[in-house]
């Protein structure tokens, strides 16, 4: 449902437009300049997301993912993006010691990477058309560009992204200031324990939510999934070792921790 709100600022009033699109089994929220609505880039981003849904959804019997899972096609016969996704998944798998996998439970399903990657690409389409300030939120994983408005001294105020409190629904645990970066969260709050520890085959426990902040949403999403599956002990060390990415976690008991690089992203408690 689009609604237009003028962003705060003294001189140039840039009108931002919001749009919520139901796709990929979730809702992708856009906060874009109104020019994106007129120059077709918002439509292009939406079409892109629907294309990803058709090709990569494990819930469609005729998607490339389902066909590959049933070994009815080879990778070469799929869309070229499939090879790119597979390569990226393999890379994160190696980096996480196997805690991220494109085949959870033995069934081929790269959704842990695809969603973030699709949203990041959608944001890139908007940037390609000239938008410098936008936010794309794919069901809780957010890619930001630019900021929310002029900060009075020539720069732009960063976007403010709230992190949902998994233990108290409707409240926020933290607010992150994000300029040109991504915020991805894995957790149990919305859909219950759905992240499986590939090594034990059972739902990962211990953490209630884990948030990764970094440049690419595709990687942030995959890293968050992997770290969540690792459990509190391993996740802390592993996420601290990631170059350019920082983590913030909330345990099942309400305690929180974050990696050193995360501190500069915090906007308010």
């Amino acid at each position, binding site marked *: 449902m689009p609604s237009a709100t003028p962003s705060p600022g003294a001189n140039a009033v840039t009108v931002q437009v919001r749009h919520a699109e139901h796709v990929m089994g979730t809702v992708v929220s856009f906060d874009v300049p109104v020019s994106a609505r007129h120059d077709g880039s918002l439509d292009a981003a939406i079409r892109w997301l629907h294309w990803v849904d058709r090709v990569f959804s494990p819930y469609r019997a005729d998607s490339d993912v389902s066909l590959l899972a049933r070994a009815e096609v080879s990778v070469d016969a799929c869309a070229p993006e499939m090879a790119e996704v597979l390569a990226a998944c393999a890379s994160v798998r190696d980096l996480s010691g196997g805690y991220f996998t494109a085949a959870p439970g033995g069934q081929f399903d790269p959704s842990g990477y695809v969603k973030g990657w699709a949203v990041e690409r959608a944001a890139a389409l908007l940037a390609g058309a000239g938008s410098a300030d936008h936010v794309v939120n794919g069901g*809780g994983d957010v890619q930001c560009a630019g900021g929310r408005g002029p900060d009075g001294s020539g720069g732009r105020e960063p*976007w*403010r992204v*709230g992190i*949902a409190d998994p233990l108290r629904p*409707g*409240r926020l645990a933290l*607010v992150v200031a994000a300029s040109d970066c991504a915020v991805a969260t894995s957790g149990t709050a919305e*859909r219950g324990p759905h992240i499986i520890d590939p090594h034990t085959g059972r739902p990962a426990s211990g953490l209630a939510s884990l948030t990764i902040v970094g440049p690419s949403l595709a990687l942030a999403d995959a890293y968050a999934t992997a770290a969540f599956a690792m459990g509190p002990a391993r996740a802390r060390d592993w996420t601290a070792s990631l170059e350019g990415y920082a983590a913030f976690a909330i345990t099942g008991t309400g305690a929180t921790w974050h990696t050193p690089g995360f501190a500069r992203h915090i906007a308010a408690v």
Partner: protein
Amino acid sequence: MRRAILAVTATVAGLVALLSFKTHSSSERTVASPEPAASLPPGERAITGNVANTAYGPVQVQVVVATSKIVKVNVLEQPESTEHDLQIGQFAFPKLIGETLSAQSARIDSVSGATYTSGGYIKSLQSALDNGA
């Protein structure tokens, strides 16, 4: 046909009479002056909003601010004329207050959390933002 016109006219006249009697008993109030609430700690300011005349009765909310942050929300006036109003007030206003302190006052633009489904989206904070809350 004549009877029909008579019936319609009489009904409309009756409606107007009844409704105007009830409108007479409501008053339009326009207040926006910040009232310093006497018992506030130093550094805190109370700002009282206008009385909003809703279909169910008047609603007035007061916000207590400390260093640009909302720290408290008081409901000064809420519809209390029927049991229904009281019932709704009981759960709506605490919820309103809670939400104000969590998402609204934080002035956020987006919410990151565990992935919600299409159905879960509706109840989410992100949905409130998208709908211009």
